[in-house]
């Protein structure tokens, strides 16, 4: 339904991208070179993963000289976390309504 959420889901559905994102969350800014060493896939592949993470808003880049340092922006995860909050509120309200229905069934 919401495009940003779809981007998040698809960006994080790939285990390698997820690993890169988690790595950035834990270690702070890294270059593509650092991440290539860490992930064990080719540099072009890492760059492609970084691109998908950037489009989802999960990673941002800061260029210094010839190097770009990529950092995680975990705030982009908020829509995902909101899902459980939203569904909990939804079900609490629905089960309230169920209790009303059960009361009426008594009559």
């Amino acid at each position, binding site marked *: 339904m919401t495009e940003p959420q779809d981007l998040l889901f698809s960006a994080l559905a790939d285990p390698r991208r997820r690993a890169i994102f988690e790595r950035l969350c834990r270690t702070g800014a890294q270059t593509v070179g650092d991440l290539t060493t860490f992930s064990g896939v080719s540099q072009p592949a890492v760059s492609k993963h970084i691109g998908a993470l950037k489009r989802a808003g999960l990673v941002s880049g800061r260029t210094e000289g010839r190097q770009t340092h990529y950092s995680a922006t975990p705030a982009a995860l908020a829509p*995902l976390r909101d899902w459980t909050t939203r569904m909990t509120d939804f079900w609490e309200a629905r089960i309230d309504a169920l209790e009303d229905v059960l009361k009426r*069934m008594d009559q």
Partner: protein
Amino acid sequence: MTEETPQTRTVTVERTLPHPPAKVWRALTQPALIADWLMPNDFALTSGHRFTLTGEWGAVDCEVRTIEEARCLSYTWVAMGVDTVVTFTLTPTDAGTHLRMEQAGFRTDQAQAYGGARAAWGQLLAALEEVASGLD
């Protein structure tokens, strides 16, 4: 919340109801009653039956999974790009019924059957919980 394996994400609501399980079961399984507390629907109490819950914000696609008379009802719940399973469990108590509603994300071993990447949402939510908890 509830017990979680590392690979699923779950929403749980529990309530003690002063009504017998058989009556709660009717409210959970009769379309007219479901419409009164959940959403308009074309539910049928048949395993494998596909139905749609029609909400103000869109439709939820469902399929009946488990039927254990007055004990357990579960159906798939696909909405907003998120594939989950909703399970109602009824336990008789002295005062009536303990109702537990659980909405769970698919496990990774189920993901394949439901077409891949989208179904991995629960897994990634769990994996990233640590990160997200730092947002506040």
